[in-house]
C-alpha cells in the first residue's frame, strides 16, 4: 500500500477506530477484575494488568503478519472478529460463564491474564487485517493503542454512552474486516482474485450485514426478555431507600 494513497488513509482511520472500540475498555476490565482485592494489591494488579495488555500486544504484533499467512488462520481470526462484533451490540447478559472479580489474588490474576490475552488477540488480529500486510501500519496501530488503553477508558466509554451509534459503527467495521479476512486467507486469495474479484467487496459487505443484523436481532430479543423480567433498574441500596 502506497503511503498517502486513499487506501492508506482508510486503513489508518480503520486502525484508529479499531483501537478505540477494542482497546478503550481494557483498563476498566482490569480495574473491575481487581476491585475486591485490598487497595495495595489492587494498585499492583491494575499496573501489571495494563502492562500485560500492552506487552502482549507488542509480542503478538511481532508475529501477527507471519501467523496470519498460515492457511486458514485468517478464517479463524475472521470468525473471532465476527463473534466480538456481535457481542459488542448485545446487552450485558447475566450468563455464568464469565470469569470475574475475585477476593483472592490468584483469582484476580487469572481473570486479568485471560482477559489480557483475549483483548490483545482480537485487537492485534483486527489491526493486522486492516493493515493489509503493511508492517508500518501494524506498528502504527500498536502505538495508537497504548494511550487509548492507559488513559482513554473513561473517554471512550463516555463516547459510546453519548453516541450509541459508535458501538454500531464499531461492530460494522469489525464485520467488514472479518469478511475481508475470509476472502484474503492464503487458501482462497488467489482464486478470488482470478475468478471472482467482486467477492473482495461482497464478502466484507455481507460481514457488515451479518454482524449488525444478527447483533440487532439478538439484542432486541435479549432486551424484550429483560424488560419482562425486571422493569427499570434501580441500584440504590434497599436498606437506605427511605429513612
Amino acid at each position, binding site marked *: 500500500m502506497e503511503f498517502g494513497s486513499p487506501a492508506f488513509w482508510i486503513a489508518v482511520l480503520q486502525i484508529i477506530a479499531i483501537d478505540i*472500540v*477494542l482497546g*478503550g*475498555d*481494557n483498563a*476498566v*476490565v482490569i480495574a*473491575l*477484575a481487581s*476491585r475486591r482485592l485490598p487497595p495495595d494489591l489492587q494498585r499492583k494488579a491494575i499496573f501489571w494488568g495494563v502492562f500485560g495488555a500492552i506487552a502482549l500486544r507488542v509480542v503478538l504484533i511481532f508475529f501477527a503478519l507471519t501467523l496470519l499467512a498460515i492457511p486458514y488462520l485468517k478464517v479463524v481470526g475472521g470468525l473471532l472478529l465476527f463473534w*466480538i462484533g456481535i*457481542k*459488542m451490540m*448485545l*446487552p*450485558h*447478559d*447475566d450468563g*455464568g460463564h*464469565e*470469569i*470475574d*472479580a475475585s477476593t483472592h489474588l490468584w483469582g484476580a490474576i487469572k*481473570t486479568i491474564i*485471560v*482477559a489480557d490475552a*483475549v*483483548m490483545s488477540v482480537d485487537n492485534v488480529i483486527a489491526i493486522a487485517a486492516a493493515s493489509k500486510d503493511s508492517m508500518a501500519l501494524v506498528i502504527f496501530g500498536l502505538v495508537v493503542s497504548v494511550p487509548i488503553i492507559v488513559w482513554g477508558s*473513561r473517554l*471512550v*466509554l*463516555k463516547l*459510546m*454512552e*453519548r453516541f450509541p451509534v459508535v*458501538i454500531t459503527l464499531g461492530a460494522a467495521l469489525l464485520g467488514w474486516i472479518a469478511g475481508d479476512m475470509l476472502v484474503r486467507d492464503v487458501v482462497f486469495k488467489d482464486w478470488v482474485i482470478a475468478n471472482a474479484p467482486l467477492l473482495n467487496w461482497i464478502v466484507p459487505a455481507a460481514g457488515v450485514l451479518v454482524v449488525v443484523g444478527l447483533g440487532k436481532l439478538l439484542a432486541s430479543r435479549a432486551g424484550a426478555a429483560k424488560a419482562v423480567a425486571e422493569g*427499570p*433498574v*434501580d*441500584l*440504590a*441500596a434497599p436498606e*437506605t*431507600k*427511605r*429513612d
Partner: protein
Amino acid sequence: MIAVLVPIDGSAHALRALDEAMAEGRRSTEPFSLHLVNVQQALAGVHVKTFIKRETLEDYYREQGNAALAPARERASAAGFSVTVHIGVGDPGEVIAQYAAQQHCTRIYMGTRGLGSVAGMVLGSVAVKVVHLSTVPVLMVK
C-alpha cells in the same frame, strides 16, 4: 403533594441545589418529599460485557453512587428531611428526566456550574440536557 428531585453528582453545585430544595420544603405547607438521584456512567465496552459479571458491575455502580450521594444524604438528614435515593446508569440527562417523570416529581432542582452556552456546549452540560428532556419544571441553581 410536592415532590422535588435533586440530581447529585458529588459536586458543590449539587449541594447548593439541595439547599434550595430544602428551603422550599421548609416553606411548603403541603406534604413534601425529597428525591436524590445519582447517575453512573455505563461501562458498556465489549470486553467488560465478556469478562465481568453484571452483578460485579452493579456492585461497582452502587458503591460509586452511594459514595457520591453520601454528603447530600447527611446534609438532608441533618436538616431533618427524609429522602428517597436512586442510582441510575446511563446518560445523566436522560436518566434524570426519566426518573422525574416516573416519580411524578413536581420540580427538578438542578445544580449547574453556570458555564456559558459555548463552554456548556463543548463540555456537554447535563443541566442543558435535563432542561431539554424534562417534562417537569427545572430550576437551575448556580
